[in-house]
């Protein structure tokens, strides 16, 4: 057991989940305190001790299924004794008296099990389905998705769903509204069946090829390591939860400035301190100055090549708009338009996104990125409103389609603003290759960062130190 748990912790670390020494020891100690045969207890025990961040839970679940799927499920399940490793999966020979496989029969029994919420029968059905339909071959180095696909191709879940819906609705006269609720209920049950099948397949893969090998094929990058240029919509949704704390942090970073003795005398605290000196106020205390409100302007490239990334930046913009009262956002392709009003507290992100793509006037000529023209237009239209308190953040790959970069405009913008930061979603090695004009622009920026993943964005915010806002008269 100890060996499996150490292997499991190694796998978590390999997947990028930080498990410290202390946590590993805690995990071991905790496992001693529980019933070892109970899989759910073991899972929750290891989860509570090893995982300290919601974002790591899916990696944990995958790895756990692989490492401990051969344990019995516990909680009163006599039939489910797991699979011993010397019998990879029950061959037909184990049930000699069974009649030949009949798909319709299986579907019928599954239907009955799902309708009657018979958990045990559902699991048995899933097992039979994998037995008969997945066509698993020992030693074949394919991932679980291949077998899952093969099983589900024969076992048409969509149709099963319809039949289940019909069966449950049969003798009732339901209103349309109730029908909707019922449909969702049915979807949830079918999804449960799908998970059961997936688990069954994974279990057999592990029995066949060993834990470590299967874990390696199933390993996915953590959500903070997903490349933002290629993130799926689901990834982006998962990131949403992480974005909120990040924007708060960014707000705090930008508001920070060098601590000077400022602010008014704090009479109460001064009096209290004076007790230490016999009532003589020798150590005057001051109120902390109010943190100043940072101004942030965001310039987002929303051209086609940046589609996924720009969705992310707009998501970020949306989250930021609740923390910065003085946030202005601009979108550009070959010209630029202000989109600040589309975002804000109480606005639905989906509709904001829609408005950016339909209402903002960001195409001037042909809809291919033109940073030069965009920046020039920006400077002409809004440049005078920049103040020495404004931080300008540009997000884009600086791929200019071989058009003139006109980077001197960026210099003017940088001079008028407090700081100019460029976030590039491309790997640094690709900068200045092809039509990328990154170094032309980089000359004028306070700093340029590669932000390809959520982790890098976190790092950027963590390390952010900007010059203090200059006094107005120097501008």
């Amino acid at each position, binding site marked *: 057991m100890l060996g499996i748990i150490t292997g499991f912790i190694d796998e978590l670390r390999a997947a990028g989940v930080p498990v*410290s020494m*202390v*946590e590993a020891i*805690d995990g071991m*100690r*905790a496992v001693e*305190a*529980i*019933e070892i045969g109970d899989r*759910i*207890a073991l899972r*929750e*025990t290891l*989860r*509570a*001790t090893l*995982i*300290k*961040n*919601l974002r790591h*839970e899916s990696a944990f679940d995958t790895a756990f299924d692989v490492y401990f799927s051969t344990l019995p499920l516990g909680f009163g399940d006599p039939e489910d004794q797991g699979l011993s490793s010397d019998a990879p999966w029950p061959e037909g020979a184990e049930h000699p008296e069974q009649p030949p496989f009949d798909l319709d029969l299986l579907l019928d029994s599954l239907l009955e099990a799902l309708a009657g919420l018979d958990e045990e029968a559902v699991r048995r059905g899933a097992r039979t389905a994998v037995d008969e339909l997945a066509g698993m071959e020992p030693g074949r180095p394919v991932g679980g998705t291949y077998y899952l696909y093969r099983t589900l191709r024969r076992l048409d879940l969509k149709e099963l769903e319809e039949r289940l819906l019909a069966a449950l609705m049969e003798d009732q006269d339901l*209103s*349309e*509204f*109730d*029908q*909707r*609720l019922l449909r*969702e*209920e049915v979807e*949830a049950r079918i999804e449960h069946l799908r998970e059961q099948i997936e688990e069954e397949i994974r279990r057999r893969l592990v029995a066949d090829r060993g834990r470590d090998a299967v874990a390696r094929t199933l390993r996915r990058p953590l959500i903070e390591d997903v490349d933002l240029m290629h993130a799926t919509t689901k990834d982006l949704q998962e990131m949403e*939860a992480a974005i*909120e*704390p990040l924007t*708060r*942090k960014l707000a705090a970073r930008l508001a920070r400035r060098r601590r000077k003795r400022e602010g008014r005398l704090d009479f109460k605290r001064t009096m*209290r301190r004076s*007790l230490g000196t016999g009532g003589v106020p020798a150590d005057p205390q001051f109120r902390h100055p109010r943190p100043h409100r940072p101004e942030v302007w965001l310039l987002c490239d929303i051209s086609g090549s940046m589609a996924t990334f720009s969705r992310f930046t707009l998501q970020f913009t949306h989250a930021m708009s609740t923390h910065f009262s003085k946030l202005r956002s601009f979108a550009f392709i070959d010209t630029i338009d202000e989109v600040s009003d589309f975002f804000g507290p*109480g*606005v*639905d*992100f*989906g509709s904001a996104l829609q408005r950016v793509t339909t209402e903002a006037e960001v195409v001037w000529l042909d809809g291919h990125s033109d940073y030069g023209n965009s920046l020039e237009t920006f400077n002409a239209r809004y440049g005078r409103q920049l103040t020495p308190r404004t931080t300008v953040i540009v997000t884009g790959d600086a791929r200019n389609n071989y058009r003139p970069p006109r980077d001197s405009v960026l210099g003017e913008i940088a001079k008028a603003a407090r700081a100019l930061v460029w976030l590039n979603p491309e790997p640094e090695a690709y900068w200045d290759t092809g039509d990328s004009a990154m170094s032309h622009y980089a000359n004028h920026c306070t700093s340029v960062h590669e932000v390809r993943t959520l982790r890098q964005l976190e790092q950027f915010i963590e390390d952010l130190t900007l010059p203090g806002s200059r006094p107005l008269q120097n501008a």
Partner: protein
Amino acid sequence: MNFESPTAVADALRSVDYLPDDRISQVVFLAGRLDKPILVEGPAGVGKTELAKSLARVTGRDLIRLQCYEGLDESKALYEWNYKKQLLRIQSDVDHDWEDIEQDIFSEDFLLTRPLLEAIRSPDPVVLLIDEVDRVEVETEALLLEILSDFQVSIPELGTMEAKTQPMVILTSNNTRELSEALKRRCLFLHIDYPDAEREQEILAARVPGLSEHLAAQVAKVARSIRNLDLKKAPSVSETIDWARTLLALSIDDVDEAILGDTLHVLLKYQSDIEKAAKELTSSAQA
């Protein structure tokens, strides 16, 4: 606080109408075995604070609550010297040696205990709830570390105050910012999410007396349906409970679109969400 088994935890919590799932009872059980604090995270209104309250009720312990907020400092969380009393003491006694007085005014008589110190100085074991710990600044978080790992508080003038009794510590967080690694390392982590429809139905039945089974099932399903939409703020468990109570008060025994439309504002708190949910749920019925 030691329970026999996770099942014992679940039974005990059920007896005070808190319905835990496997995860919750397992973690509570472990916390008792390992003497570790529990860090509870999850969306607002899923019963994080309620868990602490229920545990206090189950064990018959007092609940000491520290509500965190921005600007919380040690004089509000740990202890403070009662300087008025100290001042009086100094003034009333001018003849004594200064050294004696100094000894005297920095003794426990002049100490005002705040929740954290109170929790470990209590003669009977307590449940300590540190609520919304993500609201304090990172620097203040450090104040908690000593008490969380060693159950002691160091006071420079007095030395280390050790726990007389072992409190059960529950921290809650809405995850508005990332907590420090040091804090997380010392805790068991428990994420509570919205319950599935069956458990929510049970919760409703336990929390809203007089609710028919049919209505409870319907409310739970509607709640799930609404949470599937992409909303600014999904309805919390406490909001579905409120909604069930509202329906009961209006003596409604079957929910349809019209009633849902009229009472949606109990479930959802943003106008844009209400509009979206109303549109989604009623339009699908027309289609």
